[in-house]
């Protein structure tokens, strides 16, 4: 029997303290488990829950209860920040997550800078902040993970991506100005989530900032630099910081492990034990293939999950965004397997 609450266990792992077994979580944001099957059961549905704090909290609680994930993760999309910064967003449907309809600025050189204090108190940031505080009140024993969009991905959601990637090289001064601006907003958003009794941890996903897309030099100059700036702000509030980086990281390993994350999550193709063997200081999180979660039988999913636990992954979680058509039974097979796992031997 375990003596830890879900919140204690996750926070202990993020603080590099010993635990009985790894927690199994799903951060929200890009990696959310708002599957159609749950929403049809409970009637707390998307897209409405993207737009209203009470509904967002209700759906997040449903997901926690049905899936067995040992956290509550909000929001359920990656468009909150870009929408505030001006990009029109299509809020999607029950099955389909929100997306950026069009990036508002044609170029990094044309970004309009607005007042961060005002921005951070408007739009759907209020929805997410209110939901985090409501959830923390209702479930003090469960860690509330608030997921933000990474700085590079946010910037690439307000500037036409094709131009954006070129201008990272062509107009570095403008690029840094925009990344600073975006990071300031994200940091202010994180502050609001953490202030009072709110989120227990901040997670970010930065899918537009992979080593494969950017290469090591630009990855370091823009992704690592601004993710670390955000990390420092979150740490200054005494909260842990979880980072998910998509894609193959083999070309950017030294840069990747210089990210000041309390847990580092990667895509399914990465061997986390190998990464940890090479860089023992990192806390690993991951990385059950979401393709497997969608298509495989529960038995196979349980086996894959057991392997992750046996490999000593510190936090078990999906490796990427889940399909909204993933079966609840498959997710439950994953979470149940972790909870039944033999306790980690104490050093």
């Amino acid at each position, binding site marked *: 029997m375990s003596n830890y609450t879900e919140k204690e266990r996750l926070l202990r792992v993020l603080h590099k303290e010993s635990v009985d077994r790894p927690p199994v979580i799903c951060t929200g944001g890009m990696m959310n488990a708002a599957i159609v099957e749950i929403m049809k059961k409970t009637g707390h549905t998307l897209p409405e829950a993207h737009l209203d704090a009470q509904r967002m909290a209700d759906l997040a609680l449903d997901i926690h209860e049905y899936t067995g994930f040992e956290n509550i993760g909000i929001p359920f999309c990656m468009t909150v920040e870009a929408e505030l910064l001006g990009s029109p967003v299509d809020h999607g449907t029950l099955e389909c997550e929100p997306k950026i309809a069009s990036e508002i600025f044609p170029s990094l050189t044309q970004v309009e800078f607005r007042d961060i204090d005002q921005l951070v108190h408007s739009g759907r940031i209020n929805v997410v902040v209110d939901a985090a505080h409501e959830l923390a009140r209702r479930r003090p024993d469960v860690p509330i993970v608030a997921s933000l969009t990474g700085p590079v991905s946010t910037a690439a959601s307000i500037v036409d991506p094709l131009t954006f990637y070129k201008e990272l*090289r062509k107009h570095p001064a403008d690029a840094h100005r925009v990344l600073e601006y975006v990071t300031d907003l994200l940091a202010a958003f994180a502050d609001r989530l953490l202030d009072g009794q709110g989120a227990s941890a901040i997670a970010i996903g930065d899918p537009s900032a992979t080593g494969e897309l950017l290469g090591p030099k630009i990855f370091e100059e823009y992704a690592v630099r601004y993710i670390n700036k955000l990390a420092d702000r979150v740490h200054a509030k005494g909260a842990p910081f979880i980072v998910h980086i998509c894609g193959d990281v083999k070309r950017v390993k030294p840069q990747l492990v210089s990210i000041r994350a309390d847990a580092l999550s990667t895509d399914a193709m990465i061997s986390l034990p190998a990464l940890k063997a090479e860089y023992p200081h990192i806390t690993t999180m991951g990385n059950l293939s979401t393709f497997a979660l969608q298509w495989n039988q529960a038995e196979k999913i349980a086996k894959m999950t057991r392997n992750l636990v046996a490999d000593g992954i510190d936090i078990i979680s999906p490796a990427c965004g889940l399909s909204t058509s993933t079966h609840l039974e498959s997710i439950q097979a994953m979470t149940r397997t972790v909870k039944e796992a033999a306790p980690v031997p104490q050093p």
Partner: protein
Amino acid sequence: MTIQAEQLHEQLATAVVELDEDRTKELAHQAVDFGLDAWQAVELGLVAGMDRAGKLFDQEEYFIPELLLASDAMYAGLEILRPHIPIDTSAERKSKVVIGVIEGDTHDIGKNLVRIMLDVGGFEVIDLGRDVPPQTFVDKAKEIDADIIAIASLMTTTMDGMAEVVRILEREGIRERVKVIVGGAPVSQGFATKIGADGYASRAPAAVVLAKKLVSEKAAA
């Protein structure tokens, strides 16, 4: 070919691979001023340079920003040289590709790279953009008698739309008329096989090799 032409082709290729758009334009104007064969300047200069950039991308020396800047340089040169290419040189029927990002997904960097590389590889590419419904791929392919439909997805959540394109082609009885290729971060060969696509490529240059192979198979069939 004159030494002067050879030198200029090499300089054009170098300017493209070095991502130098201004230099490429300058050299393209020189080629026109010297009365060089514009078609050769494109093929042996601009396209050769883009091929080199593609190889560097494959070797992971270049990444997305570099490949995009090389293509900008190439297209800038092309714009200057194109009016000087005799019409009949390019009259041969090019194989046609309909490309797009599947519905629900608005991440189009990968698709844009493949479009550029297919264009460089001699295909006529019709770009449907992003967030494209499955039926639109099929309708466009029918309309222009396309050889290939190329579908991209960057999200696990939208991959079923790719399978839907194949299903529509089957339902309409035209599955044999057009090859379907798929790509994008969450896509794999296993997934391509599972949904009955004709091919999968993990990187943009490989997509061109795949497209050429499928077209030649189709011609032989």
